[in-house]
């Protein structure tokens, strides 16, 4: 028994700015591994979001374009339409994608843009200091829902994957998580599939990753994993939600 395990080429040497235990690092690594395995580093362009991953371009070794808050799918659309040979992906958090950028992601998905979106859902605005996100859980306390998310006032958390899957457009849509090693393996498979669908020109591909934010949740990294497992996964079930026919 035994496996080799090393830093992928698509990942730079730079140590990330993320807080200890933040799963952005895992997701970054999975994306990088997939890009290495598919041998597409030279024709990949990432679109970096606004959010905690705003500086993600520092951690990869291929072309990157910064985005305005929520607009990454529109930028990726522009790139992919004029250069269909490129592999274009966006990497977005829940505030970015599901709030300010909801219009852009819905329409990119509905047009069936041949792009890939990695959607990191940790139920909170991380960057700006832990405010309520559209995916914040019912009764979850955040800095802007100090008494817990009141669903009577602000609605239930949005299940973005299911919402996008309801569109009558061919797409690959999956939800995975990276809180435990068994999940990580599945998450990577989903990310790889998503990129493969893009490379094959098949469809829009979207992988939601249920993630943690120990710092803003006010939990230790180990507690945060438990919280995500107990509170988020029942509401955000894992698996492939839509696959192209």
């Amino acid at each position: 028994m035994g496996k080799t395990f090393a830093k992928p080429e698509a990942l730079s040497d730079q140590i990330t700015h993320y807080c200890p235990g933040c799963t952005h690092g895992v997701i970054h690594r999975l994306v990088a591994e997939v890009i290495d395995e598919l041998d597409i580093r030279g024709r990949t362009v990432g679109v970096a979001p606004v959010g905690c991953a705003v500086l993600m371009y520092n951690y990869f070794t291929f072309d990157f374009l910064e985005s305005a808050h929520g607009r990454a799918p529109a930028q990726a659309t522009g790139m992919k339409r004029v250069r269909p040979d490129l592999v274009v992906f966006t990497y977005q958090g829940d505030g970015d994608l599901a709030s300010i950028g909801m219009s852009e992601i819905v329409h990119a998905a509905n047009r069936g843009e041949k792009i890939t979106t990695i959607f990191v859902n940790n139920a909170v605005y991380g960057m700006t200091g832990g405010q309520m996100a559209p995916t914040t859980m019912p009764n979850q306390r955040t800095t802007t829902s100090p008494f817990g998310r009141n669903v009577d006032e602000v609605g239930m958390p949005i299940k973005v994957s299911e919402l996008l899957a309801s569109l009558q457009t061919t797409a690959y849509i999956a939800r995975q998580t990276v809180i435990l090693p068994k999940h990580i393996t599945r998450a990577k498979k989903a990310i790889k599939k998503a990129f493969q669908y893009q490379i094959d020109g098949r469809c829009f591909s979207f992988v939601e990753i249920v993630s943690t934010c120990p710092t803003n949740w006010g939990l230790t990294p180990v507690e945060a994993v438990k919280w995500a497992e107990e509170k988020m996964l029942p509401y955000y079930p894992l698996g492939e939600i839509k696959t192209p026919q």
Partner: protein
Amino acid sequence: MTYIHKIDSDRCKGCGLCVTICPKHVLEISEKVNTKGYFPAFQARPEDCIKCALCCSMCPDVAITITGAEDADQTQQAASTEDNDG
């Protein structure tokens, strides 16, 4: 086949996710501070390690790597050459 299981203490932020995940309880958070002032994870019981790589997979900071036997041989060779030169 031998594997080299290495924790880069400069990359490790001491989050402890690997410690919880290790099925053989090989890892612990160090009581010794590293050069950057962190308390990184370390292999408290390396002899128990089955090199399942779960810790590598879980680590958000790519601080844990397992290199294969050939790499290890080369490293050892290089090291011994150096020794001879020295």
